[in-house]
């Protein structure tokens, strides 16, 4: 038996070991930072219609909520040191066409100026969570903000890229409905997953997107609205993903992998046997 054969056998074995080793290494990703609270909102996939305008639909209660803590906005002026909304429970659904997100949070009083907003990064460029504020070493992208205010009774679809650039979009694609009951607001936002508007976040099932939240308590204290403008409760970026449809092709690939490995064994043994016989 020549060196060539020896070389080939060794090469084959080395390749296999490398391949198995490499895929082991790729398989183990470290967990994200962030601790015990939720890190992501899951938009559960359902077959039928989604309760796009009903914050109290029974379907919502079947879903496991994500929960995020909120901070008073002390990042830039005008700051606020104490806010009403301290955390929010978030549930989501989609049916492949439409999506809806339900925000549930405590607020003792129902006021005309109560408001809630969901913010998304748009496209592939990273955007700072504070209204897509300018970054100094990275070219940032735009954010899409869905804003609901009790007294308006609807959602406004907005865009921002930096402070003082917040504006309502030409194409309004978002709707929202709020219901207050015994100290709890439930506000549902809905929209098609895809809108074709470059200023909107486009949600593709299976893809991770960045999301953040903000809330204003519109209670009148000493003749003025308590929380307004930049004085609000905020979060920084978390993740959201529309659940992809179940994928059974994975089992096909498992069978393919097993067949390839078995074929390899078969050829190996057969060749060695042939070699021994001759």
């Amino acid at each position: 038996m020549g060196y060539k054969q020896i070389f080939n056998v060794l090469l084959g074995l080395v390749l296999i070991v490398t391949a198995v080793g490499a895929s082991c290494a790729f398989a183990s990703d470290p967990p994200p930072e962030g601790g015990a609270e939720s890190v992501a909102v899951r938009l559960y996939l359902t077959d039928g219609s989604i309760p796009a305008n009903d914050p109290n639909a029974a379907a919502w209660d079947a879903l496991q909520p994500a929960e995020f803590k909120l901070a008073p906005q002390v990042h830039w002026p005008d700051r606020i040191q104490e806010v009403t909304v301290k955390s929010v429970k978030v549930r989501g659904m989609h049916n492949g066409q439409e999506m809806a997100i339900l925000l549930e949070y405590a607020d003792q009083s129902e006021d005309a100026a109560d408001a809630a907003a969901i913010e998304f990064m748009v496209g592939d460029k990273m955007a700072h969570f504070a209204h897509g504020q300018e970054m100094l070493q990275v070219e940032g992208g735009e954010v899409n903000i869905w804003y609901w205010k009790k007294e308006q009774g609807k959602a406004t679809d907005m865009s921002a890229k930096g402070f003082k650039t917040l504006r309502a979009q030409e194409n309004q694609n978002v709707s929202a409905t709020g219901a207050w009951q015994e100290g709890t607001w439930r506000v549902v936002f809905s929209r098609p997953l895809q809108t074709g508007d470059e200023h909107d976040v486009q949600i593709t099932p299976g893809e991770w997107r960045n999301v953040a939240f903000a809330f204003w308590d519109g209670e009148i204290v000493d003749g003025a609205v308590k929380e307004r403008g930049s004085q609000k409760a905020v979060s920084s970026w978390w993740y959201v993903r529309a659940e992809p449809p179940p994928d059974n092709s994975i089992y096909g690939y498992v069978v393919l992998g097993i067949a390839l490995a078995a074929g390899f064994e078969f050829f190996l043994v057969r060749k060695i046997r042939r070699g021994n016989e001759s």
Partner: protein
Amino acid sequence: MKGPLAKTVILLVGMYVFLKFILPLFTAPLPASLIFLYLALTLASAMIFYTMSGGSLDEFMGPIGRFLTGTGQTGIAGTARILVFVLFPLLVGWQTYTRLAPSDMPPAENRTIHPAPPGEFVGLANPYPRTPENVMMGKGLYAAFCSPCHGANFDGKGPAAVGFNPPPANFSDPGTIAQLQESYLFWRIKKGGVGLPVEAMPWKSAMPRWEVELPDEWIWKIIMGEYDGAGQSPRTWEEEE
């Protein structure tokens, strides 16, 4: 085009085209590492098929060859052989599964916490003397501007700290400002989260860009107050060498 080499190449190209372009027409695309694994298996099989013709492979492989062919095996050796033959395909199958199984975890984040500062901030010295008055003034400014996030006790647990990911730095932890020079802090406080380079994920940081609100003098004094209050001292130039 009849040689074993040409056939192997055609087989591999065919396999690649199949895995990469044809299968995704029907199902989800396969990750690169799995395509690599499958191609490696195909290549190894082809090499064995075409190149290991006859010869005394036994001489070379010796016990391995006898083990694989099962010549004259009984008892434990025979069982071990079957085990190996069953386990190897299962290992490949398991690898395939773990690579493809849908994950509910968001993408892993490898944020660099202490990236290199821009050149103009390297090696700056605090121009203000460490007098009790200056330290005191720094602590007062810290209480006003920084404590809502970084905490009155310098522990990163201010009332506004929750809700931010990453959380505000804990200055009493020896892993933060004790590792850093004053010039580094000057950069971080002046330019804030938005001043970070891409590997530090500036879009996630809630650290304000203080240069728009505070004069340099205040920032240098805050640095003094911060080290003093946290019971840490800055890393100096001598330690660097």
